[in-house]
């Protein structure tokens, strides 16, 4: 029997020509302190870390920034356009992000509504077309809608990132069946972005066959962020391994796992 490598290191995935072994992407918002953020991100094992782009504080206050909590050797920065409500704002933000970070990856978000933070899929598609043409590697946050995912992949996005549930809601994977369809049709990596609340939610995303999962609030706002970061790392690894292992079919009735012959009379 040939031994197979079941470790995450033996099961890498590729995004925009780069190879990663961690399937957990994390954000950098909402942490109680930069120290806790640094430790949580380290323990999460994440190799891709998302950051936001905002105006510099001109009031003269200086202090450590988000970059000080990251190890640029270990972490690939994924700037995001969080908070943008139009394609134009998102494109400008992405261009500025590229100038800050000197990388071409961008997590494209064009939000359609402040209550749900649901994406404006049409504006996202429009912005993605512009950014792809400008050489960006675009990872769009979008609805868990197979059609928009197809369109985003067709125009050259390097991945699609359907939501599991509203950003920061912790409601988990609300429509696993849509995700299954998205995954069946996918020609690019599918990452669940947003909605994860706890470890089992992350595991489900990977069990379904997603390439990776991105989360922020679930770790940063947990009562013990470092512990949750470890839990998420383990859940992502477990979910991925379960996917690779191939789960049993669900069935309505029992199927005994002990022999049905040789029972005592």
């Amino acid at each position, binding site marked *: 029997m040939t031994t197979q490598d079941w470790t995450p290191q033996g099961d890498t995935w590729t995004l925009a020509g780069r190879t990663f072994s961690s399937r957990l992407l994390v*954000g*950098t*918002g909402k942490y109680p302190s930069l120290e806790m953020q640094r430790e949580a991100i380290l323990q999460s094992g994440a190799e891709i870390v998302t950051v936001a782009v905002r105006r*510099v504080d*001109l009031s003269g206050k200086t202090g450590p920034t988000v970059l000080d909590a990251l190890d640029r050797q270990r972490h690939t920065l994924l700037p995001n356009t969080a908070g943008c409500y139009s394609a134009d704002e998102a494109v400008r933000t992405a261009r500025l992000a590229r*100038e*800050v970070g000197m990388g071409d990856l961008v*997590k494209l978000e064009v939000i359609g509504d402040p209550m749900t933070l649901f994406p404006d899929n049409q504006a996202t598609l429009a912005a993605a077309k512009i950014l792809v043409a400008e050489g960006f590697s675009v990872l769009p946050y979008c609805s868990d809608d197979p059609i928009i995912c197809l369109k985003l992949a067709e125009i050259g996005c390097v991945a699609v990132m359907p939501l599991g549930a509203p*950003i920061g809601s912790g409601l988990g994977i609300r429509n696993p069946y849509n995700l299954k369809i998205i995954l069946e049709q996918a020609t690019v990596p599918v990452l669940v972005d947003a909605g994860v609340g706890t470890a089992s939610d992350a595991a489900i995303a990977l069990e379904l066959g997603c390439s990776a999962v991105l989360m922020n609030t679930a770790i*940063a706002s947990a009562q013990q962020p470092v512990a949750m970061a470890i839990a998420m790392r383990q859940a992502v690894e477990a979910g991925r391994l379960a996917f690779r292992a191939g789960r049993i079919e669900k069935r309505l009735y029992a199927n005994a796992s002990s022999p049905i012959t040789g029972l005592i009379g």
Partner: protein
Amino acid sequence: MPQTTTPAILHLTLNGEPRTASAGETVADLLRALNLPRETVAVERNRDVVRRADHATTALADGDVIELVQFVGGGA
């Protein structure tokens, strides 16, 4: 040569707030005056990115709308 009327004081909008600069000042001068690190701040002038290599040669003009941004913590 026609006379160009460059005012001695330039009125800018910097991150949404009014600010003045002297005629002849460049983007690099502005960042220096604000004591901002060039390597982690990106500059947009009138909706176009000013590449880092062009900071020292990009003169500010009256009415310029400047955005200075950096990376901050955030997820989505």
